[in-house]
């Protein structure tokens, strides 16, 4: 048989189409019934992926395929929710108010009704809109200040309890080889967010639904952060960013702001030579603060098997407390979102881990649902300019207040 060029071309096109269709969807699992796609963002800790696949395989009413998605997870899910080929069940660092308003996620209130009070209110509230719950919190994540005890002792510095003391400590701890404080390579605008405002007694959005930081004292607090930068006390341009404790354990910095998830690694490398603190208070109205957040499990409104998907979420994140405990504490280090589980966890009973739990209960704040991404961008830009450029905090904050007011009006209007 002779092969003609045209046949070859046709075969090539055919093969191209076939390859385009095939993709590794990671189907698997032991159940029968409809197929559900469940998405997770990529957790850094080894073993997490195998664990969530094991949980999924345990669900008998559907075949659940887990997709482990590296990269910009928030963007990926936001785009996928616009289409029919998105996930049925997914974890979300939200959902955002506009996702709820747009009807993109299902109302899960009934699923958690029986155990609602067992969820930590700090993380359930931001998943709740008009009394309806739109995602089930999986675990609590929080961030805090890690400090190296030996370095502070050598410099004769007490662990700081006020913002002024923190600025001063960072300055005194800065030497030739070691910087005083690491707040991320951007100088802190990204990771600190509203934490300094809350530590000065303000909030993103007040109880009246208006901007909660329209006050000269708020501007003064943010202005102090510029001192850290201007004094050259901040570590900048480190090989890994704030979420990774490398800079801290390698001795590039005496203090670092990072997450609770870093605790096992810090303890492994530094032993007892470290302590943890909340973000220190500022001003007479202030009190310490730590940000808390939670990935929640949500169900896409475009799922073809809404009931099964909701049933699965309920099974995994409400009923199977053994899995929830395993997920929170066996791989990374998180506080279980269920109060009953958090109280049982021996790993959280003493030392810095117990401090972290106490900070979360006493000083934790979560970004309110009304704080939209547009507000966040405006605020974060202003904070960056205040910290790095030494821009006038009053003027910057005034512009933010205008923008946030407009956003709050927008979301109130459409409700």
């Amino acid at each position: 048989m002779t092969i003609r060029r045209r046949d070859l071309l046709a075969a090539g096109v055919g093969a191209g189409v076939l390859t385009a269709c095939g993709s590794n969807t990671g189907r698997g699992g032991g159940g029968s019934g409809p197929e559900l796609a469940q998405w997770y963002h990529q957790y850094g800790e080894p073993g997490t992926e195998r664990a969530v696949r094991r949980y999924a395989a345990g669900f008998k009413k559907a075949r659940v395929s887990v997709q482990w998605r590296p990269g910009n997870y928030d963007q990926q899910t936001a785009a996928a929710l616009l289409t029919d080929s998105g996930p049925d069940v997914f974890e979300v660092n939200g959902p955002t108010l506009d996702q709820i308003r747009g009807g993109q996620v299902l109302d899960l209130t009934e699923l958690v009704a029986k155990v609602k009070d067992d969820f930590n209110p700090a993380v359930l509230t931001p998943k709740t809109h008009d009394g309806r719950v739109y995602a089930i919190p999986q675990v609590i994540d929080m961030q805090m200040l890690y400090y190296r005890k030996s370095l502070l002792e050598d410099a004769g510095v007490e662990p700081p309890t006020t913002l002024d003391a923190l600025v001063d400590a960072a300055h005194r701890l800065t030497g030739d080889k070691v910087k005083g404080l690491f707040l991320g390579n951007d100088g802190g605008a990204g990771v600190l967010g509203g934490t300094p405002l809350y530590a000065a007694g303000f909030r993103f959005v007040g109880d009246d639904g208006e901007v909660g930081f329209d006050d000269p004292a708020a501007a003064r607090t943010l202005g102090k952060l510029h001192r850290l930068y201007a004094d050259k006390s901040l570590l900048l341009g480190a090989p890994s960013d704030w979420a990774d404790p490398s800079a801290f354990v390698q001795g590039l910095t005496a203090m670092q702001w990072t997450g609770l998830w870093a605790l096992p690694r810090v303890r492994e490398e530094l032993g007892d030579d470290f302590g943890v603190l909340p973000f220190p208070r500022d001003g007479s109205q202030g009190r310490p603060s730590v940000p808390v957040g939670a990935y929640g499990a949500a169900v896409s409104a475009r799922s073809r098997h809404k009931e099964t998907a909701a049933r699965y979420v309920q099974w995994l994140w409400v009923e199977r407390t053994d899995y929830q405990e395993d997920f929170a504490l066996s791989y990374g280090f998180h506080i279980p979102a269920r109060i009953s589980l958090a109280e049982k966890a021996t790993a959280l009973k003493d030392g810095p881990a117990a401090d972290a739990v106490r900070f979360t209960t006493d000083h934790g704040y979560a970004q309110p649902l009304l704080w939209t991404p547009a507000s966040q961008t405006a605020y974060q830009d202003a904070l960056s300019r205040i910290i790095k450029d030494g821009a006038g905090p009053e003027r910057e904050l005034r512009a933010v207040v205008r923008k946030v007011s407009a956003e709050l009006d927008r979301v109130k209007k459409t409700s």
Partner: protein
Amino acid sequence: MRRRGALWFWVFVGPFALGLALFTYVPLLWSVTLSFFDAHNTVTPTRFVGLDNYTAMLRDRAFVDSLRTFLVFTAFIVPVTYVFSLSLALMVNRLRTARAFFRSVFFLPAACSYVVAALIWKMSLFSGVRFGLANSVLGWFGGDPVAWLSTTDPPWYWLVIVTVRLWLQAGFYMILFLAGLQRIDPALYEAAAVDGARPGWTVLRHITLPQLRATSVAVVLLLVINAFQAFDEFYNLLSDARGYPPYARPPLVYLYYTALGQGQNLGLGSAGAVILALVIAVVTLGQARWLRLGRTDADG
């Protein structure tokens, strides 16, 4: 027979035309439509808002800043790359031995991905800690380490952004210039030498540059378009998990966060994209007019 011809025309052109329509024109028109709607988290919006998205975008300080950023960036990177790649070409062209070797060496970075290069620049060359390459060199001369990407005064981040692009692009444009240089008739140089023109600046100014006009126009156009499309190295150098700093933020990066990030304000993002497209169209038209695009060297 003619019908057969038409059939084959469509067999070969059809897939391409279909792809172009499906992946370019439909999204383009869709995006223009979206820009007149309140499209939060949806691509099939229902609430018509007229020009609201446009006025909001033009009043947005961040967006206007980003437009300014990329005009400044273009005004800077285009002449610098032009001069640098022309110099490389002139030097390589004069070599008698190992010309192919140097041509390949200078061209090689063009094969490197923007993302990879940006990460190398960020994490090893211009890392902010004292053992980054640039800071090690500074250290030999007793300088303090500089946080290259985090310092806004002076804006060292531009040094990182410009050098990475220069390294990636210069070799490619050098090849274009080399091709142009090799097309120049050697008799012109001989005639100039006979007439007493000194080698060096005079010859470059009066013979080489005018003879390279067609190449130069092409190079400048390509450079401007490339600068307009800046995204990869900016995003990979400066973004982190919490977003992007308010400086050195090109419009595409800003729109990426507005429309595709958690913001998901697709109407506002589309309005920004249309404004950006208009700016690019105006600049390109002006440039084409100014450079007298399409005329040959003979029209000079």
